[in-house]
């Protein structure tokens, strides 16, 4: 295998896949490193065609598997049909200095196989947040810097959505949306009539709802509404790296994909004053090797990207690559998904839905958008779901029970619910670092995680409870109940930061093009680069940043 490449991309998930595709399609020899196994589109989706009655445990998970996945087993996507997409945690240790549920998916495609597929753009209300509200540092970019890249990515990915005309959540390149259901429309009307700046919209999602040439070329077809996306979709109905980015890069002949490759560190050449390559440990054999390239993209997933950079020490960078200011690993933030609200809608009993829809409705952030309204900073978006489940009486025994199951199973009332998606404030005290004593089986220091909620998060959750209760009451919903899910940070699976972007090399790690200030041929474009986290699901923004940075690298360092 060649040791020299034009570019090395660390991590074959969503953003690493984007970088590799961009490089390969422009003719650059690219090495794509993935610490987990290969997952081929369709061929490696073993449960995708299985009917419910074909599962041995009918939705239960074997105890031995749960024991191997004590963290992932808390995740909504960890099910009997998906456990094979989560790594054995016994061999992937990390230290929780404070409780943190780090949900990982080590394989080609990464978490893009399992993601919730929600794709909302950021606006300048998000990019200007830190500057306006005085936290973190000012983003070095604004919406105008990313708008064309959002469009570029959206056209390729395929995003189902409506043109809502909201300044807080800019419209994009949308394929048609599915229907809202009766109760969602009802809630939308009530909110519109009762609140000036609150909206209920269709939640934009990465699903194909229109047949276009670009998707046919990718080998994808329309979403078939199966509702089991996390198994991997044989239709390519939703976007993941396996069905699109990796095959596209591979087709060029310029891609070298190397699974089972644990990156130990990035090599910095003091004479050349730039990074020259990476040190890799073969996860299966333990063999170590080095690969060289002009440009290195670090897309290992937020916390692993932090780990790799912290572990990339040299005389020039004794505290981690690019870490002149000592801020590497710090100012990590996430999304607060703890707040939940549930209720019953007594109306619309003569209506139901048919088929399935892989998205919900969405309430964009309305708190503290145009001015500071509360005693906490920033705000939250919320999901809104309305559905009718079949209900049955299982109290009986014997023939009576059979009779109830067979003849009295019927649609229950509409149940509605919302989950908050709160912005947390990046703080220096929320950080990751490397263990000085513990190493994993490949000799890489174990990551220590020190992240927690704060008072701002608690206040925000109470506001979510009050405001959503008010909205639910106005909609006539009954039996309204709030619940604090009590999640540890991390279970939102939206950890971001640690290698933040900024204008000043003294207060940030990356510049406005996602280059390390102190080592410009190293780019970070996964969640680690985020200066703040806003409320939107972040993957779309990560992808746009990656495509933009890849173009910058090719024009400036690879030509």
């Amino acid at each position, binding site marked *: 295998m060649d040791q020299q490449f034009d570019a090395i991309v660390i991590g074959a998930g969503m953003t690493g896949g984007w970088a590799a595709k961009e490089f390969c399609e422009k003719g650059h020899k690219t090495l794509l490193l993935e610490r987990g196994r290969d997952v081929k589109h369709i061929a490696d989706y073993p449960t995708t065609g299985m009917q419910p009655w074909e599962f041995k445990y009918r939705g239960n998970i074997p105890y031995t598997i749960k024991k191997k996945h004590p963290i992932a087993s808390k995740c909504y996507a960890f099910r009997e049909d998906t456990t094979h997409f989560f790594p054995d945690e016994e061999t992937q240790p990390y230290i929780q200095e404070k409780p943190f549920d780090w949900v990982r998916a080590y394989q080609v495609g990464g978490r893009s196989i399992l993601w919730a597929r929600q794709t909302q753009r950021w606006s300048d209300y998000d990019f200007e947040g830190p500057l306006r509200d005085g936290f973190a540092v000012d983003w070095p970019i604004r919406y105008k810097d990313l708008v064309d890249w959002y469009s570029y990515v959206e056209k390729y990915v395929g995003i189902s959505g409506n043109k809502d005309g909201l300044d807080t959540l800019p419209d994009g390149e949308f394929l048609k949306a599915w*229907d809202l259901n009766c109760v969602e429309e009802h809630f939308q009307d009530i909110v519109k009539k009762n609140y000036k700046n609150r909206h209920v919209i269709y939640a934009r999602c990465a699903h194909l709802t229109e047949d276009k040439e670009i998707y046919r070329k990718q080998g994808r077809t329309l979403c078939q*509404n199966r509702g089991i996306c996390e198994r991997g979709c044989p239709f390519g109905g939703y976007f993941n790296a396996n069905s699109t980015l990796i095959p596209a890069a591979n087709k060029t002949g310029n891609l070298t994909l190397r699974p089972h490759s644990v990156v130990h560190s990035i090599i910095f050449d003091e004479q050349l004053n730039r990074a020259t390559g990476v040190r890799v440990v073969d996860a299966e054999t333990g063999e170590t090797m080095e690969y060289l390239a002009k440009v290195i993209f670090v897309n290992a997933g937020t916390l692993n990207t932090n780990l790799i950079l912290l572990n990339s020490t040299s005389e020039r960078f004794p505290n981690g690559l690019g870490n002149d200011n000592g801020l590497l690993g710090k100012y990590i933030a996430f999304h607060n998904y703890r707040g939940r609200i549930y209720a019953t809608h007594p109306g619309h009993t003569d209506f139901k839905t048919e*088929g399935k829809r892989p998205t919900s409705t969405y309430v964009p952030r309305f708190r503290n958008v145009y001015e500071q309204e509360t005693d906490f900073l920033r705000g939250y978006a919320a999901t809104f779901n309305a559905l009718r489940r079949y209900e049955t009486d299982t109290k009986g025994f*014997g023939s*009576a029970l*059979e009779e109830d*199951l067979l003849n009295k199973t019927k649609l229950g009332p509409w149940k509605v619910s919302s989950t908050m998606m709160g912005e947390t404030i990046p703080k220096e005290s929320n950080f990751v670092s490397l263990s000085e004593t513990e190493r994993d089986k490949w000799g890489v220091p174990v990551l220590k995680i020190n992240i927690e909620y704060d008072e701002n998060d608690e206040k925000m959750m109470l506001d979510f409870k009050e405001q959503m209760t008010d909205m639910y009451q106005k909609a006539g919903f009954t039996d309204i109940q709030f619940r604090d899910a009590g999640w540890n940070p991390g279970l939102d699976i939206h950890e971001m930061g640690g290698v933040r972007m900024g204008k000043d090399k003294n207060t940030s790690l990356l510049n406005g093009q996602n280059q390390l200030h102190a080592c410009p041929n190293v780019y970070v474009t996964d969640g680690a680069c985020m200066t703040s986290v806003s409320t939107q699901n972040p993957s779309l923004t990560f992808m746009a940043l990656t495509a933009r940075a890849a173009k910058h690298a090719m024009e400036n360092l690879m030509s």
Partner: protein
Amino acid sequence: MKRRNAIRNIAVLSTGVGLLSSCNWWDTTRVPVYENISLDKDKWFFINDISRLILPVTTSEQPLTESPTHFVLTSVNDCFSPKDIQRFLEGCTSFQISFHENYGKEIQSEDLSDFVVALSAEDLPDSQGYFIEVVKNLRIRYFMSEENFLKNKLDFEFVPGRFSGCVKI
């Protein structure tokens, strides 16, 4: 209230359990082996009878993917923690002893149904209640995830290919 429901259920239950062990799924000379559950033939058939009393296998459930009792015991064996398996087995043994003390060695379907229903009256030891709850929940899970039930009662479609938000019933 629960007692009244229990009595009502006894009446219905007793009509459908005439032939318990005579129509077992398995060869009566052998029973499956479960790695984490030590079960002799007698106990396997006892659990099988309990499972059938809770929810009999009738034509409404055909064709079966496997024996419901085997599903129940496989699930307990593979998915339960050692502590919960222990509790399940203790409940099973305790239940069986209590039953024999009350009704004698020979299992008569009517006696068993009476005893099973009595469990819902909250006056039985915790482990016995746990045992019946586990068997019942898993038995119902099996029933409700069978092809016949999903397709005919829950309008299950594997590949809907559509979504309609407001359909008049």
